């Protein structure tokens, strides 16, 4: 497939496709972070994660409309308000769902999968009833439009760059929260040994709820960022859920670095191959390779070294 390209042409193709893949990377990272927290720390499969993301996207859409009608002077900064709102809304709903549904299912991971799938169907149809089946887009503030010219061939759209910065910032935030804060220590203690964690006075039910809410909140931020690079429809979330699960599993379920590395490699592989073949074949090949590697190495790229 490389026939007919010179080396320099190939290099710039890889560079261009690499930058194009970065926006996919950002979406993967943002979505996978929330999933990885919920799945890696709690062993719960949240099939409705995509719908939480879309909830964040719709929150952003509503916020941007509000700013446009009532506070046009502050429009350039609406995104930060929207991001905060998306986080709060999704985290609150997440806590509610955890209380109503998930906490009854902690010992039955396969059943959480089915129950959250049901939740995702309900949420999707709710979006369709409220916002309509058509995709909606938000208006970008002026400073986010345009692109930075790097070389003659390569230019970086500002919105894509911005989303990537958010993704990385949130990844850093999650890392600090999980590994450098007292609360993160509690979460990790509960993951490693629940009875012992309870014995030293950690409220494990509270930790569970907060973890689930945090994961959903991050999905909300992911949704807010998602509106910057694409339009939002009721089933946009479902389109990403399988890929994102693969990202999480491929990276090794309990490793944040693994998640980021696998998000990067999967998105880059897909977007680079897209140049040489049809988009669907690129996706098939990427997924096949990932599934193949997972079959050979089920613990993922960066496995937690635990004696089993």
């Amino acid at each position: 497939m490389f026939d007919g390209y010179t080396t320099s042409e190939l290099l710039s193709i890889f560079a261009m496709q690499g930058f194009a893949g970065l926006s996919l990377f950002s979406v993967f990272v943002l979505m996978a972070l929330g999933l990885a927290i919920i799945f890696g720390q709690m062993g719960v499969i949240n099939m409705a994660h995509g719908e939480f993301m879309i909830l964040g996207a719709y929150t952003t859409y509503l916020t941007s409309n509000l700013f446009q009608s009532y506070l046009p002077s502050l429009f350039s900064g609406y995104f930060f308000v929207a991001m905060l709102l998306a986080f709060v809304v999704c985290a609150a709903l997440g806590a509610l769902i955890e209380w109503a549904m998930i906490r009854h299912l902690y010992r039955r991971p396969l059943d959480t999968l089915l129950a959250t799938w049901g939740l995702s169907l309900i949420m999707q149809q709710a979006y369709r009833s409220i916002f309509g089946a058509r995709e909606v887009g938000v208006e970008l503030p002026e400073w986010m439009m345009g692109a930075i010219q790097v070389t003659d061939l390569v230019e970086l759209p500002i919105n894509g760059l911005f989303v990537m910065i958010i993704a990385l910032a949130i990844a850093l935030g999650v890392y600090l929260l999980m590994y450098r804060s007292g609360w993160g220590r509690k979460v990790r203690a509960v993951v490693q040994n629940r009875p012992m964690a309870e014995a030293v006075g950690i409220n494990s039910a509270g930790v569970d709820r907060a973890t689930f809410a945090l994961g959903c909140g991050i999905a909300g931020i992911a949704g807010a960022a998602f509106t910057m690079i694409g339009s939002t429809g009721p089933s946009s979330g479902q389109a990403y859920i399988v890929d994102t699960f693969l990202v999480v599993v491929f990276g090794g379920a309990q490793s944040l670095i693994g998640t980021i590395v696998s998000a990067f490699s999967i998105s880059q592989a897909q977007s680079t191959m897209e140049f040489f073949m049809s988009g669907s074949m690129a996706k098939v090949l990427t997924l096949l390779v990932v599934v193949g590697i997972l079959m050979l190495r089920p613990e993922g790229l960066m496995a937690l070294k635990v004696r089993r």
Partner: protein
Amino acid sequence: MKTSASPLKWLASREGLYYLALALLLVVILPLALDPFRLNMVGKYLTYAFVAVGLVMCWGKAGILSLGQGVFFGLGGYCMAMFLKLEASTPEATAIQSTPGIPDFMDWNQLTELPWFWEPFHSFAFTLIALIGVPVLLALIIGLAMFTRRVGGVYFAIITQAIAAILTILIIGQQGYTGGVNGITDLQTLMGWDIRTDEAKTLLYFVCVGLLFLCLFTARFVQNRKLGRILVAMNAQEMRVRFSGYDVAAFKIFVFCLAAAFAGVGGALFTLIVGFMSPSFIGIVASIEMVIFCALGGRLSLLGAVYGALLVNAAKSGFSESLPELWPFLMGALFIGVVLAFPNGLAGLYQTYVMPLEARLFRRRTPTPPAAPATGRKDDGKPFDPMIDHFSPEKS
């Protein structure tokens, strides 16, 4: 549940009566009560029952949740569709194409000769073998790769789901070879026999019922042997079974392949009964819906799975006709309800509420419901509660 010596005695037993009741419903009541169109719809629902029965064995008994049963259903269906399509694409029938004798969608996609993997599907015997063989082979490969590495539970579910996604994208992307998103349509005859007439559809319905009972008896046979007990034991205490010297992976691969074979047969019948096959029946959403057929019926009950498939599909088409917006809410509620409120599905509800009533009516001693296998799980410190699912494997 011991097998009686004589079949007649078995038919008079409680279990035999349930089978008789189902047979009565499917063979006598529904064909008499419904017009050919509706009966054909029921036939379509029944093809999903094959998948559901497979899932009872695979998920209910052995605890392996596959979210990719649509893949096997689809492979069986596509095998049959390829045979029928080749039969429909005779050089005479396709004379207006630029390359006569190949399926129409290939001609539209500028293919000039039949791809190699289509060639064997000229033979009906090969098709019959392939529609079971291809799904089983894929299940064998997946099973060998995953179960021998002791991958199970959630990981297995995610990977099978990814495989469903891959197959769907592949079929949609390779339009020239597979018919793309429209699928393989315009199927007319099976060995010269027109499958579109009302008589043919009614006959196909009865073939479907017959094969379904064959599947049910196969599953029942497996379930009542030592093999079936090992499957259940494996689900409850995988380590103990392994340490007793059984090859856990081999049993898992076997039951996964069995479920795949059932699904393949169901898919082939689906193609015959519905008259086409398309990727929308095999994707992620379709595959996970197949799990709900099994879950609603009761994940441990073979007959329940048949009723589950019938009810969910009937409700689905009923609501899609009258209140399409309401259906996803109901479907979602069904998923949540089946997990949270009645994990043993209709069969569980029947056991809890109808059986005591039955016993009072017939003045018989309350039958002891089939003893739920003790899980030996002591860590949760709760008494055994039949309404809580104690069967799903606990993986961390």
